[in-house]
């Protein structure tokens, strides 16, 4: 890491380091408006192509007049002194970090501070335009793609790669430890280390997957359990069952139950069993009397298995009791009715049974909920008949040896084909030889399939699969820059857009060296974004950029927010995912993230938002009227919830989230010993706004909070789970806010206006986040010209998201590589 070359700290009594100011002659020359490259200045700028300053003030003059009073060796404000900076630095690539920071601060209007003399708009823009152009010119002449260490697949990338390699869709991400994050994402090369625990899990997962894919395994039955997601575990609050269709994999006229993905390891008989709720005072009791089961014959391979009730229009299925007192439980008036319970496999009804609409026991205790399924087990295989014909076996066994002599050549073919895909490059016999050795050793004393299975295990933990290999050009000097090979580019591209391996089409194109052609690359990007695998961009990029993954861990207080249940949580997440995916799929403007006239809703979420006319659990696109108070990310319950606490909203969390994720302008950390918010003053309780006002009275706190808080105040009209509210604790909510520069606005609408007024800044910030994700490393000063160039191209194309994606894919940081120093 380059040491920040800041000015010398001035201790008392030491001499001040002085830097020669521009000589009087130069200053006069510089102030003549329009006299651009004067001979005096030209002498300082060696590169003929460096942009010349323009605007009413020369760069050095602007800095001297408006900045040097604080940013000097004595005061060292913001840890920056200008004494070490020279106007020709950007052209020469010196002090890039400082100059980029200066550019950022001036463009955003954060510097000079509002209570200090300001340059005129022309002087400011003249300076910043010159500075940006200089930095960009230097980057063009000296491309610097940055450097990250060897990049390991994170667990999502691993799972997807195995799925695509073996045509095996089994969820293994829960079997691997979660990856550490850096810069807001869990695919950061420097942070993805390897430990014995991790490797052990990889080995274990590789073993399981290889067994399933090849179709080995003892054939002995084992149990797989699926818990139906339910509310009602804490003090029995919450609604445990709903009179609506529970999954897209269940019939249209069904209600309740669940469906899940099950992989049958062999052709055989499987027992599907389920427990119904017991109608006791502990809703989650699993009593043998409430167990139902069915045996079915299933072929090996992937299936959807579920149980559900057939919806009966006439019959009221709930137990008829009226619960008006916790001490008295009235018993049902009538005997239980018979409810038809169906077993559903792969969309078809494979069996049916009748269950009582309630279960009577000495512990009976039940309010008016329809009967439902708590847990589904699948046990098997029984009477196993072998590995059968599965998509993964077809993918692996592209040949079958007819005799002993044919085995080795067939193994070679199989392993070469798999290795080419897994290692993301064509393979030679020499490359394959060690892997064939593993096959032979395992084959010895067993059979062909076992040999292949062990070799596959080795493949799935090999460094060439786990790590992304990017090689130095032979004879290249340390520190020199070269383009990535087509194969290396294909590997990066498929990690970016699919979080997975390149498919055969991409690999073939790259192996033929045709990927660098701009038109071909663009065509591939379009193809990849249209492919279902691009869902990874939503899952992984949006999931982390928008903190959606935190939603699963959020626990709003059940008494304050009883309406926040499993169903609503899932709906919130899905709204944001569908919205993001639609922006990518339709190549919409990224400004839609700030303000859009549509979203995706289902009935629970629409009710939560107070929007009428949306019926049923399925999601559909809905046009939004401005009166709904929704539209864009900040009106979405998911984001409003993850930026709140369990019992109340947080102005600071929301403000910080906006600054960090929409503007790449995270506030600095709080100083040590920051006191907590005072919840009352002189005995009088304070509301949220008053608490913060008091907190900010201290100038040390105010400097940051004046930037953070207004953004959060504007969203106070949405509670801790994103519902609209007009009062808190009996007081009307105040959603007015003031920015440090005095601009006033109120509510989400006002906030949107503020954000849209900074749309170039937002576009750059979005580009930064996406570029970080695409590169798998944090961005540094030399990357900023690429960010600017990409954002500019988007601005000129209606801010479209694909322009940004393409810009990233064609940028220097993405397509070039620097040979390491040692």
């Amino acid at each position, binding site marked *: 890491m380059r040491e920040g070359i800041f000015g010398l700290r001035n201790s008392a009594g030491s001499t001040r380091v002085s830097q020669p100011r521009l000589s009087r002659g130069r200053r006069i020359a510089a102030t003549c408006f329009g006299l651009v490259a004067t001979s005096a200045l030209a002498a300082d700028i060696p590169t003929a192509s460096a942009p010349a300053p323009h605007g009413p003030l020369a760069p050095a003059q602007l800095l001297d007049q408006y900045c040097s009073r604080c940013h000097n060796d004595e005061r060292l404000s913001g840890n920056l002194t200008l004494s070490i900076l020279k106007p020709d630095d950007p052209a020469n690539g010196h002090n890039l970090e400082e100059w980029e920071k200066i550019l950022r601060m001036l463009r955003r209007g954060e510097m000079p501070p509002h209570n200090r003399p300001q340059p005129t708009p022309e002087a400011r823009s003249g300076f910043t335009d010159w500075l940006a152009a200089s930095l960009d010119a230097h980057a063009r002449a000296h491309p610097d793609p940055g450097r990250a*260490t*060897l990049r*390991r697949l994170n667990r999502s990338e691993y799972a997807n790669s195995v799925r695509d390699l073996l045509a095996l869709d089994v969820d293994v991400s*829960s*079997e691997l*430890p979660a990856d*550490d*994050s*850096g*810069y*807001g994402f869990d695919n950061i090369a*420097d*942070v993805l*280390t*390897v*430990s*014995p*625990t*991790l*490797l*052990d899990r990889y*080995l*274990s997962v590789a*073993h399981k997957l290889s067994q399933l894919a090849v179709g080995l395994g*003892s054939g*002995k039955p084992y149990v797989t*359990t699926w*818990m139906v997601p339910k509310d009602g575990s*804490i003090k029995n609050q919450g609604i445990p069952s709903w009179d609506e269709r529970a999954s897209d994999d269940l019939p249209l006229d069904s209600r309740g139950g669940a469906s899940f993905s099950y992989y049958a390891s062999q052709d055989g008989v499987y027992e599907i069993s389920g427990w119904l709720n017991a109608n006791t005072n502990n809703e989650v009791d699993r009593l043998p009397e409430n167990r139902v089961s069915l045996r079915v014959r299933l072929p090996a391979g992937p299936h959807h298995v579920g149980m559900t009730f057939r919806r009966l229009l006439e019959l009221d299925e709930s137990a008829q009791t009226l619960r008006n007192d916790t001490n008295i439980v009235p018993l049902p008036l009538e005997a239980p009715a018979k409810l038809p319970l169906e077993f559903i496999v792969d969309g078809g009804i494979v069996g049916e049974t009748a269950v009582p609409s309630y279960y009577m026991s000495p512990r009976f205790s039940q309010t008016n909920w329809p009967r439902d399924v708590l847990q589904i087990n699948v046990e098997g295989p029984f009477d196993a008949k072998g590995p059968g014909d599965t998509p993964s076996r077809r993918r692996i066994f592209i040949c079958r040896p007819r005799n002993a002599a044919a085995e080795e050549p067939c193994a070679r073919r199989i392993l070469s084909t798999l290795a080419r895909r897994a290692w993301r490059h064509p393979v030679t016999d020499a490359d394959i030889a060690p*892997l064939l*050795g593993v096959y032979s050793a*395992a084959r010895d004393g067993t059979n062909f399939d076992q040999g292949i299975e062990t070799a596959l295990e*080795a493949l799935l*933990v*090999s*460094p060439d699969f*786990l*790590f992304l290999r990017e090689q*130095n050009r032979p004879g290249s000097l340390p520190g020199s820059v070269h383009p990535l090979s087509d194969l290396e580019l294909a590997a990066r591209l498929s990690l970016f857009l699919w979080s997975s391996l390149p498919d055969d089409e991409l690999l073939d194109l790259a192996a033929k060296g045709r990927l660098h052609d701009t038109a071909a690359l663009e065509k591939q990007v379009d193809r990849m974004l249209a492919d279902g695998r691009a869902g990874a961009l939503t899952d992984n990029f949006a999931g982390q950029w928008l*903190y959606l*993954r*935190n939603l699963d*861990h959020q*626990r709003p*207080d*059940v008494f304050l927010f009883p309406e926040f249940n499993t169903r609503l949580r899932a709906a919130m997440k899905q709204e944001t995912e569908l919205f993001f995916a639609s922006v990518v799929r339709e190549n919409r403007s990224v400004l839609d993230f700030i303000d859009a006239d549509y979203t995706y809703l289902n009935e629970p979420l629409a009710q939560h938002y107070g929007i009428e006319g949306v019926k049923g659990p399925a999601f559909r696109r809905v046009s939004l009227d401005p009166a709904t108070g929704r539209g864009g990310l900040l009106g979405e319950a998911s984001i409003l919830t993850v930026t709140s606490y*369990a*019992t109340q909203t947080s102005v600071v969390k929301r403000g910080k*989230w906006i600054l*960090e994720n929409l503007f790449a302008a995270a506030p600095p*950390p709080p*100083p*040590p010993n920051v006191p*907590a918010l*005072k*919840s009352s003053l002189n005995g009088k309780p304070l509301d949220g706004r008053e608490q913060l006002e008091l907190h900010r009275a201290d100038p040390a706190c105010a400097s940051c909070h004046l930037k953070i808080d207004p953004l959060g105040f504007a969203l106070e009209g949405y509670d801790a789970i994103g519902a609209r509210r007009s009062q808190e604790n009996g007081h009307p909510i105040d959603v007015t806010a003031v920015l440090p520069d005095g601009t006033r606005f109120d509510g989400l609408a006002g906030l949107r206006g503020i954000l849209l007024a900074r749309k170039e800044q937002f576009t750059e910030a979005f580009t930064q986040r996406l570029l970080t994700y695409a590169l798998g490393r944090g961005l540094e000063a030399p990357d900023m010209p690429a960010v600017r160039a990409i954002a500019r191209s988007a601005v000129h194309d209606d801010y479209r998201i694909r322009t940004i994606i393409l810009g990233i894919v064609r940028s220097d940081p993405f397509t070039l590589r620097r*040979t*390491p*120093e*040692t």
Partner: protein
Amino acid sequence: MNIPRKLLDRRTVLRGVGTAMALPLLEAMLPSARAADIAARPKRLQTLYSPNGMIMPSWRPTQPGRDFVFSPTLQPFAPFRERITIISGLASNQAVGPAGHGRSCPSFLTGVRPRPTEGSDLQCGVSVDQVVAQHHAEDTQLASMELGIDPPSLLGSCDINYSCTYTNTLSWSNATTALPVTVNPRVVFEQLFGDDDTLDESARLAQLKRRMSVLDYVREDANRLSGRLGTNDRHKVDQYLESVRDIERRVHKASQQDPGAYAAGLTRPAGIPEDFDEHVHLMIDLQVLAMQADLTRVGTFMIGRELSNRTYAQIGVPEAHHMLSHHDNDPQKMAKLALINRHHMEHFAYYVERMSHTPDGAGSLLDTTMVLIGCAFGDSNTHDNLDLPIVVAGGGLPGGQFIVVPKLTPMSNLHLTLLHRLGISQDRFGESSGVMGALAA
């Protein structure tokens, strides 16, 4: 130890010489005096950790010495009075400073000041549990187990300027390698007992042999890869190679033991229980089991991550943990935080109870296990690193007392004392200035 054992080299074992398995060492085979000595020496170290600090007045017992009265927070340990020592006043000097959580957590078992960074240049120090693990690495299948409850790194929820890695774990095998915690009980079960459908011995050995061949292959592949890389990248591949070696050693060990006997009657857990208390119990049960089967002798358990905002409605505390910990002296919030502290101690007392009831030789597992219980800082509101709430139990330590140490006595002195008692006689650890006389053997 002079008992003759057939020491087989790895290749021989893997060629399936099944009849020549090494027998577990039986105390009955040794002369009784030596047996008593060996049986008495502690050989295990367990750390039990609670995040976000404590309400210290509710934690601290009354007077020092043997006549102390249990505080509300420590009340769950009352049945084990004679087995525990409560220590007040230990300090983590290296953790003092801003970002209380980000600094204190990595410092707790290392006694080192971590480098503030969010990137790849992490720098901490080896943790005391890993010193023990590395020392006894040859003796058990798993060098150590790192267990937790909260999944690592929720986005945006780690201390500013300190990478999430610092608060994800307590254990560091060296200054730059943090060991991730496992939170899924099923995964722990599989780590201990394997993941095959079968516990059949010959099939198990065949599988181990195949795994060895896979490890041979990847090791050679990694060596080939490493030769072509720059220094930074080679470091990453080195991590990979070290992991391979660790697993090879473990597989070798596994081929000499049959832990399946202990798993009889156990069902593999389905996954992570929804209920916090159930999850904690399960993890503690698995930890005890691992020690009982001698699959490992070193464990750490984090009942929550630093900055945890978990709510505890089941004990009448629906507010978020971390928020309560910054109570600003509001008595209601303090009372609630103290309830959470006590709830955590209840779980840790459950561990002590299980260990004291699980036999080990002539005594119990608790007799030969040093248990270290505490938080990385004391007063939660100010992140006070200079007065940590610590309890040590078991391992033959003198119990039944409440000790107040001189101010600024480093926590590392306790670490060093524990190391000495475990037979590791190094001069220093972390920021130690000596050993603790009150606990020395």
